[in-house]
């Protein structure tokens, strides 16, 4: 069974030969090629080659075409700040004052200079491995994207205390962009997209606020996307809205390490696929024993009956997580993830 079949079997709530493992490695490909992160992300060929090298090296079950979240900010005309040792961040907020929202236009992903390289990366990966290894990507949800375009404080101000008409206008532009960006990625060849909505997590919003502000925005966006969507909270918890996530149209959800995977499996395991919930932050200092124990825990709590992919809780493994830990995750999943079969 190849990785693609393994993942598709798991996603159809059946047990494949072993539990699929996704290592969400966005930065490690640069290290493999001796490039700085800025150099690495400057060309589609670098990222595609990085992903293929990482696939060979760790023998996990996906190719991750995602560059960094600020790519979407660049598409709107914003800037990105690069670091030597961590993921790039968005630069100064593009929307400095509310009047800027009126002038905001939705970029066309097919024409966008900023999104050209990510789309090319997907095409390169699809050419190399389509149907053999799932190609997955990520995008920021329309509700969370404004926090990157205008800063979280300004977005919360507009959301909680601001003009509803201005807020809705901003969300309309965000929705249009997210739909076209997601569909452009599917056309290029991705098999599934992580829909990052950290503002929906219980750390940020209550269930009532999610229902009032976000749910319809997410559901209406996902409805228009022509491919499978996985809801992700960037490490935040979804237990407070876990029953609502399948209703957004998402086919999967990334579970936080602070959420109870076993309980979530019991609650919605039949309705939605679960990914997770290795602690990507703590992982940097795990021993081999601790790594094995955590992989075992996730598999014991989530894998039974399919509908589960072993992954980290965030959708991005920090640069400082070393080879030994990454190999140990895959090795343990192979060892203990055969669904109790004796073969």
């Amino acid at each position, binding site marked *: 069974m190849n990785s693609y079949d393994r993942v598709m079997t798991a996603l159809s709530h059946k047990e494949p030969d072993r539990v699929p493992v996704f290592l969400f490695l966005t930065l490690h490909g640069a290290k493999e090629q001796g490039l700085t992160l800025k150099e690495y992300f400057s060309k589609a060929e670098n990222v595609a080659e990085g992903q293929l090298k990482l696939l060979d090296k760790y023998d996990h079950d996906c190719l991750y075409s995602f560059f960094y979240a600020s790519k979407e900010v660049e598409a709107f005309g914003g800037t990105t700040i690069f670091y030597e040792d961590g993921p790039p961040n968005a630069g100064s907020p593009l929307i400095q004052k509310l009047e800027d929202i009126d002038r905001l236009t939705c970029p066309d992903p097919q024409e966008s200079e900023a999104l050209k390289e990510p789309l090319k990366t997907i095409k390169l990966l699809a050419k190399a491995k389509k149907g053999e290894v799932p190609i997955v990507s990520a995008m920021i949800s329309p509700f969370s994207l404004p926090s990157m375009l205008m*800063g979280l404080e300004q977005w919360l101000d507009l959301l909680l*205390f601001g003009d509803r008409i201005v807020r809705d206008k901003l969300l309309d532009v965000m929705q249009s962009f997210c739909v076209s960006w997601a569909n452009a990625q599917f056309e290029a060849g991705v098999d599934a997209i992580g829909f990052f909505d950290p503002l929906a997590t219980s750390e940020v919003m209550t269930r009532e606020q999610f229902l009032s502000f976000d749910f319809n925005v997410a559901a209406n966006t996902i409805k228009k996307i022509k491919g499978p969507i996985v809801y992700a909270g960037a490490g935040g918890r979804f237990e407070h809205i876990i029953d609502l996530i399948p209703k957004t149209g998402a086919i999967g959800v990334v579970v936080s390490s*602070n959420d109870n995977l076993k309980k979530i499996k019991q609650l919605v395991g039949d309705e939605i696929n679960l990914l997770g919930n290795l602690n990507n932050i703590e992982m940097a200092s795990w021993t081999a024993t601790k790594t094995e124990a955590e992989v075992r825990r996730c598999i014991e709590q989530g894998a039974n009956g399919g509908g589960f992919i072993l992954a980290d809780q965030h959708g991005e493994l920090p640069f400082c997580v070393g080879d030994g830990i990454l190999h140990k995750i895959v090795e343990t999943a192979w060892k203990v993830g055969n669904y109790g079969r004796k073969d």
Partner: protein
Amino acid sequence: MLIDKDEWTFSSNLLESLMDCDRFKARIVLDEAAKSLGTEKVFSDVIPRALNSLGERWAKGEAALTQIYAASRIIEEAMDRLSPNLQTTSQLKCKVVIGALDYHGLGKNIITKFLRASGVEVIDLGTSISPERLAEAAIRNKADAILVSALMLHACLRTERIKRILDSQGLKIPIMVGGAPFNFDSTLWRKVGADAKGRNACETFKELTELLKK
């Protein structure tokens, strides 16, 4: 200690309005409390009690960032409106330097507002501050503590450099850290050489109080 019934009612109503992120209701509660109890009592008792309860709810996962943020805005607005010249009855007399090691400033700004509302002198250096600048500002301003905020793991790890600078000069200024990675890895604050961590504004205040007793 016996709590005045009105005072308790005002605190309780204020907490309810903070949980609802309702600044209009909060304004009415605070105005009535100021009229009934006096402005000083509002800032020394009514607000701290409501914020303390909010912090406890956050620690138990019963409050969200939106509610904490709304509270910080509401209290800041109340300070500007009701007591621009009032010297708050400081529960903690100290001076701290605060800065974010990356571009994420929301946590830092909330902590700053809450500490200022509690009478602490806060020197806010802003976001994307180097560890060297934080250490230098703390030394120059004779700060009692350095508060470090970071959302990205690689930024959190730079806290060690502050510790190294202080150690190289034989200085013992306590370092407190806060930010999501410190919540995901409960031992990270020790690994980066901090003396304490705060998961929210109230915990930061409590931990800071304890740190400065040492």
